[in-house]
């Protein structure tokens, strides 16, 4: 599912007030491109115990709760008590999007009955409708001409036309930023009042928007939930931790540069960078703002959420701040 980045960018541009709960783990294809998004597992019983233990480590970054939800939330689906707390909060959320691959779990029925939008991977025609009010559908086609991914956005019928228009505008804008008509084929139409389709497909090689995430929005496994204070800005304070894992979500399976910008490092005690548990060959440079950029070429794996690791030597000073994470071609 390499089109998650494009899809997330279109939806955020068209529906900026929307809050996302990406239930696509262990892949979570939209999560990385949607800062502040919640994430979870639609069917935790199918998860291998070791993968469940891994995902159970993560908490939402300090700015994840900026929209009013609980801070430091764990991944949905792994802790019944925390799930109940999150659902209680989300019930009052005005504009909520649930993204998943498969049937919505029964626990989400009340959210769907309350009118949450649903983004499902694959075709939805012929499937039982989700609980709640009648919904229209916008078929979204992303990926490449050679490998098309289909997603269906289920939303109130009277919202189909205006949302389609905004998504189409967003697609043309994004395509213009990423190579224009030579790189993208964009098209769509409003079929009926309650049905539309929109495609944004890369011509030739797969393409994805660049990604730059503030440290404070990242899902992490630091032992205590760090606050994002004035001194940390948008950063994630590492405190005394010597190593931290960051959950990115599903990334396009291709070569890219992974860059982390940090403050508070010693030039003689540089950290090491890891992707999916394996060490990367890193280089570093100081930037003009007094921070340090650690970067490495990395190849993401398809079909599973990518995890970035950062390990500081034992002698490195405490109190480093992870300012941002960047994923760029």
């Amino acid at each position: 599912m390499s089109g998650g980045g494009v899809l997330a960018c279109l939806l955020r541009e068209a529906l900026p007030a929307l809050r996302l709960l990406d239930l696509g783990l262990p892949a979570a294809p939209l999560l990385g491109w949607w800062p502040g998004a919640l994430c979870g597992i639609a069917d935790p019983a199918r998860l291998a115990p070791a993968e469940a233990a891994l995902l159970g480590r993560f908490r939402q970054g300090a700015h994840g709760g900026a929209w009013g939800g609980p801070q430091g939330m764990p991944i949905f689906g792994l802790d019944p008590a925390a799930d109940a707390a999150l659902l209680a909060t989300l019930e009052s959320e005005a504009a909520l999007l649930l993204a998943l691959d498969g049937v919505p779990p029964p626990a989400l029925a009340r959210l769907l009955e309350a009118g949450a939008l649903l983004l499902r991977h694959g075709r939805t025609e012929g499937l039982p409708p989700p609980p709640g009010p009648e919904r229209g559908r916008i078929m979204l086609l992303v990926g490449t001409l050679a490998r098309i991914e289909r997603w269906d956005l289920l939303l109130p019928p009277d919202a189909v036309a205006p949302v389609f228009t905004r998504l189409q505008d967003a697609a043309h804008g994004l395509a213009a930023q990423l190579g224009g008509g030579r790189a993208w084929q964009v098209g769509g139409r409003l079929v009926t009042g309650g049905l539309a389709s929109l495609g944004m497909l890369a011509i030739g090689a797969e393409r994805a928007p660049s990604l730059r995430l503030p440290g404070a929005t990242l899902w992490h496994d630091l032992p205590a939930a760090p606050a994002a204070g004035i001194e940390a800005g948008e950063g994630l304070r590492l405190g005394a931790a010597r190593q931290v894992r960051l959950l990115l979500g599903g990334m396009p399976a291709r070569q890219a540069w992974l860059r982390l910008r940090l403050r508070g490092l010693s030039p003689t005690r540089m950290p090491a960078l890891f992707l999916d548990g394996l060490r990367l060959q890193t280089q570093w440079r100081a930037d003009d703002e007094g921070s340090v950029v650690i970067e490495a070429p990395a190849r993401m794996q398809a079909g599973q959420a990518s995890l970035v690791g950062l390990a500081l030597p034992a002698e490195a000073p405490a109190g480093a701040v992870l300012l941002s994470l960047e994923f760029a071609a």
Partner: protein
Amino acid sequence: MTVWTPLPPERNGIADYAHGLLGGLDGHYDCRAACDDWLARAPEGVALVDPALAHRGAGPRVLHQIGNNPGHGFVLRGLRRMPGVTTLHDPGLLYLYETTGEPAAAIDAGMAAALPGLAAVYGRHRREEGLQSRANHLLFDLAGEVLARSRAVVVHSRFARNRLRLAHGPAATAHVAVIPHFMPPGQMPSRGAARARLGLEQGEFLVLTAGFATAAKRFDWLIAALDMALAHGARLRWIHAGAERAEEYALGAAIAERPAVAAIARVTGYCEETVLDDHIAAADVLVNLRFPSSGESSGSLARAFAAGTCCIVSETGAYAELPRDAVLQLPLTGTPRILGETLRALAAAPDRAAGIGALGRRFALAEMALPAVAARYREVIEESLDRPVAGTALPDPPPLLVLEAGAGLRPAQVAAMLAGRQGRCRLLLAMPDLPGLAALTLDRPALLRGLLPASADLLAMRVQRTPRPGLLLDLQLGWPA
């Protein structure tokens, strides 16, 4: 193959062992090492992998290196998720369980599995009085879980295998194989070069001990023996190449009590591998006493064999299995006197020590060479691939109990709520609001200590805002006190 293990620079012998073994196994398998220190040193060509992600892309071949200290907690947790062959360097494991946050009920059950009668008494002392003695660590091995969850278990001596068999029975230990400790693969330094680097005179007789100074290594016997030998005119020097753990055994203080010994003794502190090798190669005698022994093996002994240094050991445990012409074995009774006489005699005739060292090296070359050990590991790993292990599925979420708490919350209410339950559960002390909870905890210091029965272990707690405000306790319940 994924090898779960600590690695250097972690300061324990198993990390050094695993580093060497990985080098030997590299000829048989494409190895990667799962180590919780992401910056640890693995042999060239062996990738380090974060243990939390080791399950991704893992094949069926898995090897775990487990010893009895908290540095192996991540290996024990890895074994539960990725069963494979386990090298049990110390069958004890009680200290590992105690220091890595394992539930008290699991420790109680492990103790009971090994020695049911004694576990009832010692377990009650531990639970109710917080009483733990050295006897606990000698009597109770807690290897049951490792035996059940491993496809095969490797130990380094017949003593260790027999001990496991006696405690856990033949059926549970049918898959235990003995593979001897290996000699370090590299070339040991020459005696002369090592002495020159350490600033030692070529002619002086050097007695060496190595590793962490623990009570079981019987420094009390050695110090008495040295004092005796010096009193009878022996000319020698003693170096302890290792760190002192005063809380375990106050080595420096014990040396200071004997001025004659203090005059010829030096404690180096922890030694890196190359410095340790220099000390072992420079020594005339390596003294490696042990009592009591739980079957542990010794990395410094293997290094001494490789260097051709004469070894003096206690005739117990795994050491008793060494050939009598390869080492000097001392009985456990009257050790200080016999050791004193032995050291005096060898100091007077250093060639005799060198001769014993040469025989020890010949034995080790035949029985402890790394390629032979690695080939034996391969046999055990391949033969074990289809062997089933105990279930590893994660348990269901523990049940949630809700107790309406208020200012008058009493222990009896909690006890009634928990009555008849065992194992994990969560207890929500539900309050009308969080200020009420704050007031309750301020008014009653040590609230939980007073509320929870002795049979309940508090694993974790957190303040919960929604869906109901209160204090959420994660508990492990044992049997009624």
